[in-house]
């Protein structure tokens, strides 16, 4: 709700002049001088007369009859006085009340105070019997454009932009004058652009072909699907091929040109959107597959419970969130930062325990490992289900991750997905540094390349196995943190990713981190680009077929490996 304000009278006159000009076209034709005289007369006479009109219309908003409400809204829109805005907005938000003395009140947010819509004085409303005017969709449809038109004179550019966009969505011929006058004073680039678009959408119906052409040209610069449909309608033909909607060939040519340019822009937007969603899907896959590339790729241990490590990470995030909510509510927005090490730790410890207790007895028997880890995944899923319930739990986005930035018209870069892409960079860097720049990494690589030789050189092989497995599982836990921000968190979260992440590792080639990175990005982008043409399911099948064919050509994946998993 915008704060209640009364504009100085000088500002209030401006729309009035405009109104007079618009409503008296015949006078304008007859004589400019006469018109000017009448306009100035109207200005002089306007203030008192209109003030009562405004009062009456505002009172009408609280009427019991919907017809009166509708008429008052129209009157207020015609008057174009921003002073009526708070009342109109209150009506939209169901905050308008009428008390026993028939005063029209605007309820404040807390519900105990209200302000008189006419005088602006504060009225305590606790204990009073208030009636709220009933509005239906028809009223709403009239109300929204009127609010938008009034908001165009708001001092806040955000409000003006929203209002302009509303006008683009519902173009009304009556608003043309208001838009033109707003364009004269408007300084903000984005608002101007939206206003021009709105104006063009109105002028495209004008009887003057010159105006239509200029409107079509303006529209050609947008990338809006509605605008495209409007332009396409101009080129409609009937059965015999005659153009029914647009008589002027020049306008038609301009419309066709504008359509082509819109199509080009829409294609660009959809390309960018697919690319972004593809990369973000790829990042999610990569987070799931990165740990797998370590446990399966480097150690040769096939871990079907890997998906459950993701799930544990997501639940660790959920728990961290709840702890922050109850104990550190003022730091709540930063729970995610704390969740990262927590999730890593939970999954890593679980991984190390599993490696110690079960997996090490199965080394060299991969098929048995597969079955045993599947059993582990069943146990983990059922345990989580019994502990947290079978329903999905709610993990909230922190404030700094919700919303998004509109990069192009029709393409919103959502912050949570963008953050995941960044997070993946962090995770890959972490793995790279751990494997390449730390003593642990050195040992891991030594054990991978030649296990017995490494043992001879004094590397504690079995302890390195444990740490490696812990690292791989911990990375999966990080993936769980990321997944909790974009999807549902439930006991079966991991199951959905296990097939895909194995595909990533197989495609990328076992044993190489770079392979996992490229494999994940390829799969993600290819999936997203196939989706519009084939649907998600056929896309998945096509990708599978593609992987099988690819393995025919390069059995070792994109990046061949040398090490103990390579068959000697």
């Amino acid at each position, binding site marked *: 709700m915008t704060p209640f304000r009364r504009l100085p009278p000088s500002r209030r006159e401006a729309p009035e002049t405009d109104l007079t000009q618009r409503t008296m076209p015949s006078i304008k034709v007859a004589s400019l001088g006469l018109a000017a005289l009448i306009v100035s007369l109207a200005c002089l006479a306007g203030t008192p007369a209109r003030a009562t009109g405004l009062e009456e219309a505002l009172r009408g908003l609280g009427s019991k009859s919907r017809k009166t409400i509708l008429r008052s809204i129209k009157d207020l829109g015609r008057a174009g006085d921003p002073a009526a805005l708070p009342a109109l907005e209150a009506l939209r938000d169901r905050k308008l009340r009428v008390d026993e003395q028939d005063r029209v009140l605007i309820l404040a947010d807390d519900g105990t105070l209200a302000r008189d819509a006419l005088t602006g004085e504060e009225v305590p409303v606790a204990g009073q019997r208030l009636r709220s005017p009933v509005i239906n969709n028809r009223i709403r449809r009239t109300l929204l454009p009127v609010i938008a038109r009034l908001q165009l004179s708001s001092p806040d550019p955000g409000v003006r932009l929203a209002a302009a966009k509303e006008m683009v969505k519902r173009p009304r011929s009556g608003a043309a004058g208001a838009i033109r006058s707003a364009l004269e004073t408007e300084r903000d680039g984005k608002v101007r652009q939206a206003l021009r678009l709105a104006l063009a959408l109105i002028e495209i119906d004008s009887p003057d072909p010159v105006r239509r052409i200029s409107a079509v040209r303006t529209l050609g610069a947008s990338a809006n699907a509605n605008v495209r449909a409007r332009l396409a309608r101009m080129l409609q033909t009937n059965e015999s091929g005659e153009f029914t909607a647009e008589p002027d060939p020049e306008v038609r040519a301009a419309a066709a040109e504008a359509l082509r340019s819109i199509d080009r822009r829409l294609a660009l937007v959809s390309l960018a959107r697919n690319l972004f969603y593809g990369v973000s899907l790829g990042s999610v896959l990569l987070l799931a597959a990165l740990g797998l590339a370590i446990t399966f790729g480097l150690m040769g241990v096939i871990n079907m419970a890997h998906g459950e490590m993701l799930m544990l990470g997501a639940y660790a995030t959920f728990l961290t969130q709840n702890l922050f909510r109850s104990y550190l509510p003022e730091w709540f927005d930063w729970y995610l930062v704390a969740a990262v090490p927590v999730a890593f730790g939970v999954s890593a410890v679980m991984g190390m325990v599993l490696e110690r207790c079960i997996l090490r007895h199965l080394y060299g028997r991969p098929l048995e*490992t597969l079955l045993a880890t*599947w*059993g582990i995944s069943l*146990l983990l899923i059922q345990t989580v289900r019994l502990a947290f319930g079978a329903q999905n739990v709610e993990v909230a986005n922190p404030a700094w991750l919700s919303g998004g930035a509109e990069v192009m018209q029709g393409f919103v870069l959502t912050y949570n997905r963008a953050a995941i892409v960044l997070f993946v960079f962090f995770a890959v860097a972490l793995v790279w540094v751990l494997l390449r720049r730390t003593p642990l990494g050195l040992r891991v690589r030594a054990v991978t390349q030649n296990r017995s030789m490494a043992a001879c050189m004094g590397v504690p092989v079995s302890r390195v196995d444990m740490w490696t497995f812990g690292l791989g599982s911990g990375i999966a836990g990080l993936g769980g943190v990321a997944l909790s921000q974009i999807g549902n968190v439930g006991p079966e979260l991991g199951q959905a990713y296990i097939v895909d992440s194995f595909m990533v590792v*197989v495609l990328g080639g076992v044993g190489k981190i770079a392979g996992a990175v490229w494999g994940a990005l390829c799969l993600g982008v290819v999936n997203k680009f196939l989706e519009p043409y084939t649907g998600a399911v056929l896309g998945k099948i096509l990708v599978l077929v593609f992987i099988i064919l690819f393995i025919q050509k390069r059995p070792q994946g994109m990046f061949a490996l040398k090490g103990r998993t390579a068959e000697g």
Partner: protein
Amino acid sequence: MMGPWLDRLAAMHSRRGWLTTALVGAIGVIGVPALNIVPPPDTWLHIPDYVVMLLGKFLCYAMVALAMDLIWGFTGILSLGHGVFFALGGYAMGMHLMRAMAGEGVYRSQLPDFMVFLDWKELPWFWYGFDRFWFAMIMALAVPALLAYVFGYFAFRSRIKGVYFSIITQAMTYALMLLFFRNETGFGGNNGLTDFKRILGFSLQDPATKLGLYIVTAVCLLLTYLLCRYVVTSKLGRVLAAIRDAESRVMFSGYNPLHYKLFVWTLSAVLCGLAGALYVPQIGIINPSEMQPAGSIEMAIWVAVGGRGTLVGALTGAMLVNGIKSWFTVVFPELWLYVLGALFIGVTLFFPRGVVGFLQRFSKGGGSCTSNR
């Protein structure tokens, strides 16, 4: 000409083995139905109808376990896609049953109900012919065979083996499950095919029909067992075991493992298709959840629990695990997944040769159960 062939058949088992097989077969095929019909319902000897139905279901699972054992226990290839072959056989049978009741559905249309619901005007081309029983039966075996052959050819040719093969088959299962979940695929989508009325003119609600289906299943299982036994005791079976134990050496000896693997893989898929086709009329529904990757992995655990590389082990395992499952999901439904998980871990860790291997430790050289190991 018949002489050596009979000798060869007789050599499949020892004398004791044949006797045991005949005995178990007779109990399964004749004994159970007899106990269902002859004793009056309230005596302890009587086997109630629902147990017969349950046993019929288990026999289908046992057939799958045999197929699984053939490919995993004897050839060393762990398939996580056998649920697909099973479901495909089931769908072929289900399509026949749907066609057989044309005009009797809820909408009294010649089309299956779900097509009326989706507002389809005519039968899709792949539904043609399924109104004939023989055609549906051929399809129940041929479709899994074809899928297995094509998939196996590409996979084995590029020497995908071990866990890679398992993962790829699991991905296939997952993809096909998603495909069958779609309504547009034309197999009833999410709900699958259900609400069948009769098979070959016999009402499916009639206990006599159910008993008949059970007997047919038992006979098929017996024949399947003999076929598998024949395969694993033949020279082919020995090559398969060699492939399992040292594939490179088989290649160096001049054999091409591709054809052997492809044969046993396709045979295994066909047996699964048969099991699926027998399963659907007894259960009365087939839907894409039969294709869930988890289901296929469970099939592997039947074999592992019973004992890999022994056909008897596969049969025992399937019966045992499913028996436990039926009991647990009724009495302690929330504990069943724990039991299953523990089975997976315990068997692989402590009983790699399963129940049969465990028992063999006590009776050294035990007759009919031994594999060629």
